[in-house]
């Protein structure tokens, strides 16, 4: 079988995990990959972070390194489809592709029923060509690409655009024009049009403002099929909807925000230019309370530990204190979970004299209507007394919820667990997972999981050829 005939690897999700898997696969083999990303840019949640823990370096730094690796890859071996979602995944039947010659009783003259596929899955080995799936046909829907690659991100279009949209990159804390660029590290490096807000034919001011012929508001959505040998699911996560935790007042009180919003407030390219200002009155937030396990480790919300929130809050506490020496930070926790070497990071955060730790989960938050300050009710378990704590702003450590793209999969099985994480139980079908699609993880562990998934992809491919 020639390499020219080899199908590419499909990677679902172009976040840090997906990019890492793509790079590891292409750098370690001659395979090519197709990365399907729902956002108009790659990089995912990492780009929305202000800093990574534990080194506290800016998040775009690690991303830029990966971007350079992408740009230095062989032409066409890594293909990105942004603004795209996968509609359907079906298995390619053995006798329809004609690329492989059936060499066993199972495939000979067989129309491969779903029962046969199940047997293969359960046989728990990579097989010798007969035991593995043949590949997947993947239907991709790409949103209209109104801006082409001529775009130089000069920004003339946005200057004339009369419509505004909520900036979802900043978790809707500010607005931007309907023709917009998502973030300073955006790749592909071009503007986007929000089809829900844009007036199209009745406006078209941007088209005439563009000096590079980069805008075509008549662009149409495209649906096309690709073929893939195996699949890496790196569909990532979203923060838990903190509004569901009714006792914590998110959505009801302006100064109750989530940890992901805190990252945007602190980021230099965020809605406040890197100043941690509280949403109600734009005053600098000095006395900030961090509420751990907002949703996580809670049978009424997310029964699992989201693994990163303790470290994220410690990180936020550290940079809050660094940005403003007058500030103070109070962390309400059940247990501080900083496994292994991260214990040092905890020591660093807790050695600060204006950072307090209170063992006891916050059960109630209510607002002082005049000042906009918040009162947090908790039991300080170490002293056994109830406390009422007043804070300028509250940061809820919202947990991670795995994204689960709605894909028609038919008899192709994705082995999700009860919480929606995809474990590597699908070796024989060539479906692997990485990043938070697999389990709650920080960036560091996500990259490791991507490397692992990349190796699995190569092993699968090698065993298949037998």
């Amino acid at each position: 079988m020639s390499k020219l005939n080899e199908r590419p690897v499909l990677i679902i999700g172009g976040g840090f995990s997906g990019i890492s898997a793509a790079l590891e696969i292409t750098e370690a083999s001659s395979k090519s990959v197709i990365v399907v990303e729902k956002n108009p840019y790659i990089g995912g949640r990492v780009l929305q972070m202000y800093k990574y823990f534990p080194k506290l370096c800016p998040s775009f730094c690690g991303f830029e390194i990966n971007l350079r690796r992408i740009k230095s890859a062989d032409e066409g071996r890594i293909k990105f489809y942004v603004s795209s979602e996968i509609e359907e995944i079906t298995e390619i039947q053995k006798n329809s592709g004609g690329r492989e010659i059936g060499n066993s009783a199972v495939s000979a003259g067989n129309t491969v029923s779903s029962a046969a596929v199940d047997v293969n899955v359960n046989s728990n080995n990579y097989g010798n060509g007969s035991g593995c799936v043949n590949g997947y046909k993947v239907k991709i829907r790409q949103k209209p690409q109104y801006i082409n690659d001529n775009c130089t991100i000069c920004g003339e279009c946005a200057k004339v655009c009369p419509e505004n949209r909520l900036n979802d990159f900043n978790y809707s804390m500010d607005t931007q024009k309907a023709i917009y660029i998502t973030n300073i590290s955006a790749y592909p490096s071009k503007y986007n049009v929000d089809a829900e807000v844009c007036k199209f034919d009745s406006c078209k001011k941007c088209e005439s403002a563009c000096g590079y012929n980069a805008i075509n508001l008549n662009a149409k959505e495209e649906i096309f099929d690709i073929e893939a040998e195996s699949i890496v699911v790196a569909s990532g996560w979203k923060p838990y909807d903190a509004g569901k935790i009714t006792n914590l007042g998110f959505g009801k009180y302006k100064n109750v925000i989530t940890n992901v919003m805190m990252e945007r407030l602190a980021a230099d390219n965020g809605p406040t230019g890197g100043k941690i200002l509280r949403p109600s009155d734009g005053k600098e937030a000095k006395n900030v309370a961090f509420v751990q396990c907002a949703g996580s480790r809670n049978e009424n919300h997310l029964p699992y530990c989201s693994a990163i929130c303790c470290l994220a809050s410690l990180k936020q506490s550290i940079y809050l204190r660094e940005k403003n020496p007058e500030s103070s930070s109070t962390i309400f926790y059940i247990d501080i979970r900083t496994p292994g070497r991260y214990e040092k990071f905890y020591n660093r955060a807790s050695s600060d004299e204006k950072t307090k730790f209170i063992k006891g989960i916050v059960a109630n938050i209510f607002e002082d209507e005049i000042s906009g300050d918040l009162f947090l009710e908790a039991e300080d378990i170490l002293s056994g007394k109830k406390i009422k704590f007043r804070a300028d702003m509250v940061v809820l450590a919202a947990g991670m919820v795995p994204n689960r793209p709605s894909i028609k999969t038919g008899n192709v099985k994705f082995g999700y667990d009860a919480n929606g994480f995809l474990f590597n139980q699908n070796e024989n079908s060539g479906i692997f997972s990485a990043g938070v699609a697999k389990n709650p993880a920080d960036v560091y562990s996500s990259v490791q999981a991507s490397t692992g998934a990349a190796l699995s992809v190569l092993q699968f491919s090698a065993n298949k050829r037998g």
Partner: protein
Amino acid sequence: MSSNSQNAKGININGNDNDINNFNLVKNIKDIGDSPFKKCFQCGTCSAICPLSSDDKPFPRKEMIWSQWGLKNKLEGDLDPWLCYYCGKCSEFCPRKADPGQLMMSLRRWLTTVYDWTGISRLLYKSKIAEYIALLIVAVIVFIEWAVLFGLTPHSNANISGNASVMGSAGGGNKILTINQMVPAYKIDYFFDYPMIVILSALLLSFIFNMFKKTVLSDKNVKIPFKLYFTELWALIFNFFTQIRFSKCEDEEAQKETFFKKLSEGKYNFWLTHVFLMTSYVALFIGIVVFLKWFQTDDKYVLFHTILFDYYASIGLIFGTIYFAYKRLTKKIERSKFSHHTDWAFIVLLFMTAFTGIMLRAFVVYKDPSSWVFYLYLIHLMIVIPMLVIEVPFSKWSHLAYRPIAIYFAALKEKASKLNEAEAGAGVADSAAAAADDNL
């Protein structure tokens, strides 16, 4: 107690006899009200969300860990389960679904068995069958006593009216015997009411003394000045009649609503129905035991206050029992979600007592055949006396006594410790404040 030999196997965690872990405690609590308190991971949501628990000594988190660790002595001296009125917020918000409210309910049952030195209540709480047998035994005793005193067919037992005339009219079949001719009220008093009330009071008082010993006397940290026992007595009386703590279940710091708004929204329905039922019960109990002559009368036009008493109590009992039975059947609110067999026994017996009592009154007033009155009275006694004998000292009824008394004891301890603090020097207070700061 038979479990003493097993208790000795407990480990001593800090060399203090008060903190011996009792391995059987978890089992003992689960026996009389299963709840998943072993799931608790001590986050403190329950204590913080509880509208009733105090800031200095909140519950139910500490009860959760004491139960998990088998700290029997700590729990025996704990009054807080009686201060909980099961609003269920702790269970609703518990991130582990460990149901602290249900544990507090189980602990109230368990404490009843702790105060009861006879061991009977433990048996009744543990076994449904034991409770039914106990009720049956008392019913049979009532039956035998009745048979000996009044016979098994309606005939006059009154000494006042001439024997011969009554015998004659009974033969004639038309003359209706009055209730007091068949079953003289003074005999009910002397052979049923008074012995029962003496035995029950003696038992209950001894249990309350036991409770006093375990919760107040054994607490070496507080010494209660003698005068306080009298000055705090109002807390006992006030709480007994108003059950005001019940209403505080609806207190929410975030939403400040007026009393009348909450009332109109029906938030106080449970509390008010409970007060209605309790006052009805108490009114009738006192009425029947002390003033039986007023109620057991053939006169259609009884004294005005008796009617008022009678009607209030009858409506209260019937409405109250149906209301709570409905809540327990629909299971919509936390405090009615789990029903122990003793909860049902109490509601059903109370309803049957009220129902037979009202029927009896109707039979008398509308001059129904004397045999109806005679047998219904027997049935009524065979329900009400077992209910009182079993429920008052050994089972669910006892909370009527333990709850206000626990509030009284808690008030005593709180006041006493405040007085102690005030007596202590300012220097000591400073160091205590510093220690509290360290804890943060």
